[in-house]
């Protein structure tokens, strides 16, 4: 008798679970398309630590006519000594199929924290620069780039 009762409950539970999972999958899909992938990535990298939005020097064009070759350069003021230096710098883009663009690893031998490269942008979007200091602090800045012709293929 007890067993039968158990069966009924478990079947109902299975149905509930099925309904629940499909619902949550649909919802999470909908939810994931909404928030900013780059900001999520920043949270992931900084492990939810506080990220100060400061004025780091991020040089991107205001309007990029060709999204295939967009020059990006940055310059972060830092003494670059053993006590105080920028360890890692991330470049992220929130409108590309994948938010990551590049990760730079610096050492104190470099003497200054700057670099230049070229990236692809699929559409008009924000570019984020995230710097990780040797003491575990984070700082970020963002800049908007208008893209006339997208450059991610497809």
């Amino acid at each position: 008798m007890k067993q039968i009762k158990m069966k009924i409950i478990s079947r109902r539970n299975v149905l509930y679970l099925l309904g629940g999972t499909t619902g949550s999958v649909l919802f999470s899909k909908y939810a994931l398309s909404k928030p900013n992938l780059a900001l999520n990535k920043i949270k992931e990298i900084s492990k939810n630590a506080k990220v100060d939005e400061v004025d780091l020097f991020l040089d991107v064009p205001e309007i990029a006519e060709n999204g295939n070759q967009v020059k990006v350069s940055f310059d972060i003021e830092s003494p670059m000594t053993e006590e105080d230096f920028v360890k890692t710098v991330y470049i992220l883009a929130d409108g590309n199929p994948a938010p990551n663009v590049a990760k730079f690893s610096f050492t104190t031998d470099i003497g200054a924290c700057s670099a230049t490269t070229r990236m692809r942008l699929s559409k008009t979007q924000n570019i984020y620069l995230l710097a990780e200091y040797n003491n575990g602090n984070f700082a970020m800045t963002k800049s908007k780039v208008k893209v006339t012709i997208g450059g991610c293929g497809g």
Partner: protein
Amino acid sequence: MSKIKPRGKVPKTASVDEIIEIKTLIRHPMHSGRMKDKDGKKIPKRIINKFLVKFNGKQVFGMDLEPSISTNPYIAFPFKAKKTGTFDFEWTDDNGDKYNMSRKMTVS
């Protein structure tokens, strides 16, 4: 496909504590895995995923590249000249190939 060829520009001479700029470029298609060829078929992903710079055997600069980096990746970065030495540049391809280049610099 054109041959993959690294190029780099390092000043031959520098003075002590001068911050020099190093420019590198490698000819590489950087297929992001999203582009299609003439027949509409997807070109498989193949990019340079890592760039490392060593000075006299010690790593001084590194970069992880993602598909969002343009064809023929160009990378420029600073370096504080302290002593004479050799730069070793290394690019790593998705297929495991490594492309190397070295440049000498004299500090006076």
